[in-house]
């Protein structure tokens, strides 16, 4: 099969749309922090994307998609994009490379949730390069680069495990190492710019269509299915989170949009395997589940500040399991639990479990090492003044 202009057009645009998710995460997060840290939050998303770009086109792509070494990692055969050409099957190899790049970029941006409003910029850059190399690249290899998980038959259509479990549980580990924001629990740290978060949420929802349906790597019926279930799950999650929180008080727009993201996360691994009615269920459960996880996190006094763990981590876990539950052979060729395939469900659970452990442990060690060497956190004074001024020398309405 040669290049197909339709597929190529589709993935070119999808790549751009997924790229937009990275600043989308920045805006989504930026609206939730105190105004003295909003620039820092958005800037980190750009910087995450920039450093992942350079990492990916040198070593990262090859580590993830190079010839498999023992099921764990790719070789450096494609170092510096060596041998990645402008032709390919359906779409150019080079395009596949950059489509994968933008996934790696947004994943690192999600991770900033755990260190929001208190990480040192220089340490974030070092952490970012290492995390992408040591956590993201192996996970991508396992799922999509021919590693053990794909050999085992684990299903992860668009990155529930690779992107969301890794960043969600990674953020949790980071939050544990870096410690709570000073004043956390003592005084309110409510979102100061909800509008910005809603703008970010809009860009995320928009980009997620490309994230999920683009993962079909072709403009076909499977892409259409992924598109449709993505939208349904987002809507369902938005509504159930809203209703669940309504039962306790006023339904905040933050809850509504967080529910949408929860729905989007949960459908990510499943979107090439399940149908529209399953998507209502998957998204709906994700909305309620992630909402409860957020409450649980708050109750435990854990400052995983912007809830990457509750939403991406736990939503990703639910999505991985849900794929094993609701998959139907008529769409993606594999049946799940409800069609009697216990085996697939167990594979999903195993895959998710290993990913959680790996992401959590490696991130934890990495953060500890950086903390002991260069220091992960700004000083108390810098934190009080805010990262915008202390890390960037800028402020809103200077």
């Amino acid at each position: 099969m040669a290049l197909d202009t339709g597929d190529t057009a589709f993935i070119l645009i999808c790549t751009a749309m997924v790229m937009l998710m990275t600043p989308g995460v920045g805006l989504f997060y930026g609206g939730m922090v105190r105004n003295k840290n909003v620039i820092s939050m958005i800037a980190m998303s750009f910087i995450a994307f920039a450093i992942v770009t350079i990492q990916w086109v040198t070593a990262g792509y090859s580590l993830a998609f190079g010839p498999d070494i023992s099921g764990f990692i790719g070789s450096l055969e494609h170092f510096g994009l060596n041998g990645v050409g402008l032709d390919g099957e359906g779409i150019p190899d080079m395009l596949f490379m950059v489509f994968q790049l933008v996934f790696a970029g947004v994943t690192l941006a999600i991770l900033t949730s755990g260190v929001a409003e208190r990480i040192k910029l220089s340490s974030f850059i070092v952490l970012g390069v290492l995390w992408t190399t040591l956590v993201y690249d192996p996970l991508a290899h396992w799922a999509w680069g021919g590693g053990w998980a794909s050999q085992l038959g684990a299903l992860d259509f668009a990155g529930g495990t690779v992107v969301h479990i890794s960043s969600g549980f990674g953020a949790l580990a980071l939050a544990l190492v870096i410690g709570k924001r000073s004043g956390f629990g003592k005084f309110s740290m409510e979102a100061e710019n909800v509008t910005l978060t809603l703008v970010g949420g809009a860009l995320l929802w928009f980009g997620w269509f490309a994230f999920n349906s683009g993962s079909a790597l072709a403009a076909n019926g499977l892409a259409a299915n992924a598109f449709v279930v993505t939208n349904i799950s987002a809507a369902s999650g938005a509504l159930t989170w809203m209703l669940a929180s309504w039962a306790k008080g006023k339904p905040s727009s933050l809850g509504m949009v967080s529910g949408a993201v929860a729905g989007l996360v949960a459908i990510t691994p499943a979107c090439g395997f399940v149908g529209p009615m399953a998507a209502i269920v998957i998204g709906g459960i994700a909305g309620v589940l992630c909402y409860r996880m957020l409450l649980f996190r708050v109750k435990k006094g854990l400052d995983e500040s912007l809830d990457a763990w509750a939403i991406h981590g736990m939503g990703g876990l639910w999505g991985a399991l849900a794929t094993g539950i609701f998959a139907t052979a008529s769409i993606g060729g594999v049946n799940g639990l409800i069609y009697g395939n216990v085996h697939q469900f167990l594979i999903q659970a195993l895959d998710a479990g290993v990913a959680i452990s790996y992401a959590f442990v490696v991130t934890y060690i990495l953060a500890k090492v950086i903390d002991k060497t260069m220091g992960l956190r700004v000083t108390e004074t810098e934190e009080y003044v805010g990262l915008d001024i202390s890390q960037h020398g800028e402020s809103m309405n200077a």
Partner: protein
Amino acid sequence: MKKINAIIRPEMLNDVKAALAEQGYFAMTVYEVKGRGSQKGICLQYRGKKIEVDMIPKMEIDMVVKDEDVRPIIDIIRRSARTGKFGDGRIFVSPVELVAAIRTDDEITE
């Protein structure tokens, strides 16, 4: 009547409000300000150089109260707004000659 102007850390506002309300002091007007005290603001170390951040966000609370309430209110604000570190803020008391409601024709002079 006196006017109390209290300049506090923004993050302490809720505590201060609650502590005041507990003692029955509700009426107040607040607004965001920035300021520096005699410490000239906050000093960040940056590669040997010192960078002064001289305008730190604060919250100002204005309360017009009866003369006998000044002392207890100062005490409440001090208790609830104090962290013990530089930048906790300051309270000013000045005279007010007349208080007039807008909704009614009530007026209080001294």
